[in-house]
């Protein structure tokens, strides 16, 4: 029985056969509703893992199953957010958030006639991430943190079963980052969406995730997995508690080893 996201013995290389693979013999399983974090040295293939799981790249070897189906084309039910918020500057924040609905069925064909309903939904999401009433602003009128919040709304508006976050807070200052941790934590709790978060911030990974996957240096494979059994809901205070610090410390050891091996 495959897991919700089941990456099995996957090897992938960009361009050409002779190139050193980006990931090799990579096996990752993520259960439905689980929050998984992927950490590893930079260039180890974390973003590649994201692209493989969403069908934006196809592996040279191995199998990838998402939601019971072998991935042979883009998965069509993933929401994605990146370090760069990539909002479209010619659209208002609200219209940016509605963008996925112009693509994904059944919303695509319903959007025009049920616009009000969708706008209301988007407003609700905006309020949830602390951007109430900002829908009319253009992205360039928002701060980096606010743009990232809007980008999260865009990733969630079509109620994807899978949320892929690739270092979404990498470019933000420490305070904004912690605020957004809480936003993500609450969104995940409210929707039970499956989340895969790529990050290089171990505290972020441990605070948010049910399970942290450590990858080796390129070619990336899993070198350690750590279940995070801290009770939920977690408060920011928990990041100063002894069990939290212990887990972060343990993961640090794995990453240090991975870098040394490289």
């Amino acid at each position: 029985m495959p897991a919700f996201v089941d990456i099995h013995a996957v090897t992938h290389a960009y361009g050409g056969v002779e190139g050193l693979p980006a990931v090799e013999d990579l096996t990752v399983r993520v259960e439905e509703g689980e929050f998984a974090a992927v950490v590893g040295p930079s260039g180890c293939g974390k973003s590649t893992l994201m692209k493989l799981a969403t069908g934006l790249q196809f592996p040279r070897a191995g199998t990838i199953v998402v939601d019971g189906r072998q991935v042979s084309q883009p998965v069509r039910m993933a929401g994605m957010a990146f370090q760069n918020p990539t909002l479209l500057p010619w659209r208002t924040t609200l219209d940016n958030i509605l963008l996925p609905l112009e693509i994904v069925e059944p919303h695509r064909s319903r959007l025009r006639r049920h616009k009000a309903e969708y706008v209301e939904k988007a407003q609700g999401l905006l309020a949830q991430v602390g951007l109430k009433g900002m829908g009319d602003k253009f992205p360039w009128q928002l701060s980096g943190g606010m743009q990232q919040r809007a980008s999260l709304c865009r990733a969630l508006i079509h109620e994807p079963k899978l949320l892929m976050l690739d270092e979404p807070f990498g470019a933000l200052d420490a305070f904004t980052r912690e605020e957004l941790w809480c936003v993500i934590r609450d969104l995940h709790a409210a929707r039970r969406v499956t989340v895969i978060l790529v990050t290089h911030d171990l505290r972020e990974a441990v605070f948010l995730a049910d399970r942290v996957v450590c990858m080796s240096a390129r070619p990336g494979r899993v070198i350690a997995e750590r279940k995070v059994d801290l009770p939920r809901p977690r408060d920011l205070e928990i990041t100063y508690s002894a069990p939290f610090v212990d887990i972060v410390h343990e993961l640090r050891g794995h990453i240090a080893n991975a870098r040394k091996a490289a």
Partner: protein
Amino acid sequence: MSAIPPSPSEFVAPAVPAVSAATRRRNRQLALAPWVFTLGFFLLWEVACRALKVPSYFLPAPSVIAQASAQYWWQLVFHSFHTLWMTLAGFGLAVAFGILLGLALGASRLVRAGSYPLLVGFNAIPKVAVVPILILWFGVGWVPPVLTAFLISFFPIVVNVATGLSTIEPEIEDVMRALGASKRDIMVKIGIPRSLPYLFGSLKVAITLAYVGSVIAESNASRNGIGNLIARASADFNVPLVFAALIALAILGVVIYVLTEMLENRMTGWAQRSQLAAG
């Protein structure tokens, strides 16, 4: 050119009346400067022509040019409109064709790789050299000016539209593809709006080129238009009329440019504002 933004302290500096009066005087001077300089230029010209007794068949004084303009005003207006019409027709063709080709180039790597050498080679030909062929094919008339304007101006449009399309951020493309967006969806929702500021940026260049093209072709392949008027006037040694026509060209060129710029500002305000916000 990016001016260094004033530091906040410059905004909150105590408003000493003397300073603000000086600033106001300076602003007034800045507003007047273009008029003063332009008037001064023509005045200098006039004075130099009279003082040095330059014959008007060599360099006519502005007053003589003004007389010629008054005398030939109907011809000048008629031929200006003809030139405008040739320019706009060629430019319109260039926009339509340029957008289509630009979309094809931007959307397909294969088309881009295949046709770039041809395009670059074609663009390298000075278009004046093509006019004789156009006369040979289409005879003297309205076709050569329109086609020359078209040929000379479509290239920047193609390049800019293609650039706008081919520089889509890979992340937003990933977001779209992971939603199941087709190539066409990505073009319509992202590529085309994104390439609009590039397109409008190129229109200013293109209209100027089209104008050059139509005037060049008119001067030896047409019986109408300012280019032809200049050719005939200079054959008659009517130098004041030549200069009057040149000034008509300048005015027409500025009008065309400003109109295009206004269109650009209307259509792509977001790009300008985002630049302001960023810098």
